[in-house]
């Protein structure tokens, strides 16, 4: 299993964005509570991470299943096959971009693997495969999630939006439009993740300051070096003037 010591530090600071990356603050019992959640505050992925991704499914006995349901704050359908030990594949249905999609996956399959290998939705990128880069960012029930750090089985019953689902009726999302206009991309490999992170940020905070944008996108890495243009794209997509324009007019 991935070494999550950095992201999952029990008492570390929050990552600053509304995601389930595990950098939220932890309780005395070591469980990581999401301050924005309405339920008892434990995100699905945080719970799984507490157990360890590969151990989670196989250790879900009847007792732990009910505990899981309580922690998740929702009813998990029996079809989610939470009692499956694996590694034999199981049939599940995922709700991706508004469509129910049937997929047969090993229980230890991450949401990212299900998207890329089983559903041919390759917009979400596998870059670090351990929650450090944000390249696989998707929105699950309104929250930004690193899909490499969530099991596909745990997305059953949730609404998953991937970068492929952001444009509606052939029209780009304003975030996508402003990425294009401000050249918020070079090789483009980090771009889907940054587009999703930016969308999630603006959903939570419709008019972020530059500092809030930097913090909100800090779970994502770009190697070509496009951050300047991405900040401007985020500002424009939220109806604010790009920093460069303000700077140069005053210069």
């Amino acid at each position, binding site marked *: 299993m991935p*070494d999550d*010591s*950095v992201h999952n530090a029990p008492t570390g600071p929050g990552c600053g964005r509304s995601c389930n990356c595990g950098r939220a603050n932890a309780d005395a019992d070591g469980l990581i509570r999401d301050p924005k959640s309405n339920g008892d505050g434990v995100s699905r992925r945080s719970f799984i991470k507490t157990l360890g991704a590969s151990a989670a499914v196989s250790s879900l006995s009847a007792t732990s299943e009910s505990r899981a349901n309580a922690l998740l704050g929702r009813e998990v359908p029996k079809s989610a096959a939470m009692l499956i030990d694996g*590694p034999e594949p199981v049939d599940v249905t995922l709700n991706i971009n508004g469509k129910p999609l049937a997929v047969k996956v*090993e229980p230890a399959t991450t949401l990212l*693997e299900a998207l*890329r*290998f089983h559903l*041919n*939705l*390759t*917009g979400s*990128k*596998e*870059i*670090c*495969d*351990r929650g*450090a*880069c944000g*390249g696989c960012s998707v929105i699950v029930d309104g929250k930004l999630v690193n899909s490499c750090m969530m099991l596909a089985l745990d997305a059953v019953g949730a609404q998953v939006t991937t*970068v*492929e689902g*952001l*444009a509606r009726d052939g029209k*780009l999302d304003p975030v*996508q439009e402003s*990425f*294009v*206009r*401000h*050249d*918020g*991309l*070079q*090789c*483009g*490999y*980090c*771009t*889907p993740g940054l587009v999703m992170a930016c969308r999630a940020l603006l959903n939570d905070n419709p008019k972020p300051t530059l500092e809030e944008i*930097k*913090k909100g*996108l*800090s779970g*994502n*890495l770009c*190697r*070509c*070096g*496009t*951050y*300047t*243009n*991405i*900040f*401007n794209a985020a500002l424009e997509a939220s109806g604010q003037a*790009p*920093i460069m324009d303000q700077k140069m007019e005053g*210069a």
Partner: protein
Amino acid sequence: MKPLDEATLIPSHMPTTNRPSNMGASVNDNASRLDAVPKVTGSAKYGKDYHLPNSLYIVFIRCPWGAADFVSADEAAAKATPGVVEMQVRGKSCTYHGQSIGYIAADSPRAAKRALRALAPKWKRTPVKTQISDTVKDNPDIGDDGQNNMNGAEVTHEAVYTTPVQTHSSLETHGGAVDHRGDRATVYASTQGTSSSRDGLGGPLGLGQGDFELVCEYVGGGFGSKLGGPGKELTTAAQLAAKYKRPAYMFCNRSEEHLDTGNRPSSRTLARIGFKKDGSPVGGEIRTWGGTGVAGGGGGASIPSGRYKLGEIKKLHDDVSFNGGGPRAFRAPGHPQAAFAEELMLDEVAAKLGMDPLALRMKLAGGEHRKMFEAGAKLIGWSNRKPNGSQNSALRTGYGAGAAGWGSAGPGGAAEVVIARDGSVESRTGTQDIGTGQRTGMGIVTADALGIPLKYVSVKIGRSTLPPGPGSGGSVTTPTTAPTMTAVAKAAKTQLLELLATQANAKPDEFSIKDGVVLRNGEKYLTWEEACGKLPNDGITANKGKGERGDGHSNGVQFVKLDVDTETGVIHLRHVVAIQSCGRVICRKTAESQIIGGVIQGLSFALFENKLLDRNTGAMVNDNFESYKILGPGDMPHIEPVLWSKGQSGFKALGEPPTIPTAGATACALFNAIGRPVRDLPLTPDKVLAALAAGQGGAA
């Protein structure tokens, strides 16, 4: 200093009405990337995105230590893992962490990984060297004559500067997917050399070059590491695809990418240099060592750079081996590490001379660099710079500067332009776009040469069946292909105008095209689409033409302003001004992006990056993205790219120079803030605090 000449600058995001002289004649140079929409919607397919039905998935078996002898492995258990198709283990002695000793191919990635765990190779570790200083322990003179060229010097400076191994950290890892259909194949590669990768794949595929196509429409970064043929990942996939006549897929994971796909070698620079009291250079000697891991070469450091007059410098370089993966070309190979040493050395000399370091650079640099330094000093606010070490507050501000230069390349590569009867234009060349904007640039130069808006042009690159183009290395892709594409597009335009003239019983020189309108004797004659409607069924195809060379260096200077928290040692980057010339600006957005990206990679090299090998085992301890830190959004300063227009024309280099001076300028800014140099990259808080503590001891 002279007042800033506004006409020489193109400030970022300036209104398009104020169009500097080195931008194109049309509106096309403010275009957005032609491939931006596929990239923001996730529909762009990179090599790593080709998960083909019935594919084999390959994992390499790799040595987990810096040096170890292979002892045994449970091959029976690995072969018995459900889904395993083939395994090859070539047990041997290994000399670096990540060295491959074979592979496992299976029906799914999970099956391949399970078999790798079942294989559980056993190793016997052997002693390792992990860095240059394991071999180079003193500071020897060059040669035996004791002459160091410093005779007559009034001020001398001797210091050692070191930089760590930096990995390319391309976000799309190395590898490829191969669709082998028996007598035909399609190869989905992630490469900087579409043509060179194709050349290396005929043998492994068992096919002639005409029987397969290499597709590389999108590349998730390369920075030099994806040059030089198909690589062992793609070659292995091709061999197994050919053997089993089914698709095969091999891409490195993040750890393997750090371990075994090249790097910028570490460096050690010993500088002994002398000056007169007025800052005139006397000369000296510079000895460099490159830490090339297990490779025998490739560790050169470009110091003296030639950008500053330093007098007569005696130079000697040696490559030093240790138990790490070998280097590959990395964006301006040999330069950022050398510029770090050279720029910080100059600031230290200036401090000894009691000179402003910018004044020393103005004395030593050439004419264009001097003008750029003047302009950049205004933009960064150099007049607010305080003397070295004069601040006592907890938060101290520092300013630093550095210079870059890069040579030009002549026209090259092959290109084809097709004009169809509906007015659409296809521009074809077998290059690849690794993020530079090559696809967009080809479209713009085609549209500009034809005199039409960019919307009519589509660009085909990244396929081995197109007219062959150069690899993306040495910043030559644009300087070679843009002149060629321009010439070919002009040839297509000439054919079109000759045809219109023949049909009208007129002379061709009566006709011209501007902004998508065909003019006859300066008057509107036909729209572009009407004119193309007069073409024969198969339109016009042109593929001959030789462009003009863009002469002269692409020069640049950078200024860095930062704050140092002297209680924690943490550096807060505040402002970077990056002035860069590149000849004619084909596309302002992608040109500025190249500059911003070069600066960001340079800042990341300055502050964070370090491929760290355990000194006992030789294993890389940070083969991931949590502890191999690259610069993230939260670390960002305000970066101001400035495209230098004065005297610029022709197509010149841009990709590499903007990453050369950044680390050096950053180190100079730190020196300015705290009054003590940190001569070892990265500039981490522990080193800053140690420098501050040494400063309090009073020893200079």
